[in-house]
């Protein structure tokens, strides 16, 4: 599965455009992590726990999007966009969407 955020895959021709595919996930960290992050707020610096959380969640959102594309019979997702929103305090929603296509 080829994933890209440009619309044209160089050297390939798009045989068919199959439409929108989406992947989303809402994740939280356990309270221990929240506590550490609270402490970190005093000293500053990278919140490794949350970096990891958002990264994992984004990865999963992408997996789900590709799962949808695969179910459609596509072999690539182009023009992929990510969007993040905090649905509830301490919980992050990661959303990925793009157009599933069949490359020749």
């Amino acid at each position, binding site marked *: 599965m080829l994933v890209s955020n440009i*619309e044209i895959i160089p050297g390939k021709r798009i045989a068919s*455009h199959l*439409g*929108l595919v*989406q992947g*989303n*996930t*809402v*994740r*939280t*960290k*356990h*309270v221990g*992590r*929240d506590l550490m992050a609270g402490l970190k707020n005093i000293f500053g610096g990278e919140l490794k726990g949350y970096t990891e*959380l958002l990264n994992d969640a984004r990865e999963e959102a992408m997996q789900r999007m590709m799962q949808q594309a695969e179910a459609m019979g596509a072999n690539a997702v*182009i*023009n*992929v*966009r990510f*969007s993040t*929103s*905090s*649905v*509830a*305090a*301490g*919980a992050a*929603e990661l*959303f990925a*969407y*793009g*157009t599933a296509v069949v490359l020749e």
Partner: protein
Amino acid sequence: MTDLVVFLVLLTLGFVFGRLAESRHFKSIQKRERELATVLAFSERLPPPTNTPRRVALVGGNVVISVDYFKMIAAGLRSLFGGRVRSFESLVERARREALLRMKQQALELGAAMVVNVKLETASISKGSKGQIGAVEVYAYGTALIDIT
């Protein structure tokens, strides 16, 4: 003690009605998705190259969906342990598909057969005093391509 009773009643009400509303909403979404299958939607920025004359119009659809009490408590519990918040995932999924459907509906009314450059915006609105979510808003928008005949 009365607090506990109120809590349990709210939880039950939230669960029963929330689940009923959710399954009904999913059924309606699936039905309308089949009906609106003629309107195509793509996230690509450029329309397919063509020689037929076309008009473009910005179309959009939004929806605000509220959480129920059960979902809220379940998410609160989940936040103690971390991990996937299933109760909110189905909520945003419903909101997204509903917003897309409303966008497609508008495109259909304009006589369009295709919407390109579709983008989705999510916002959580009416936050409570403690930051708990009240509702989620999704706005779907794109450019409808209308053939001039």
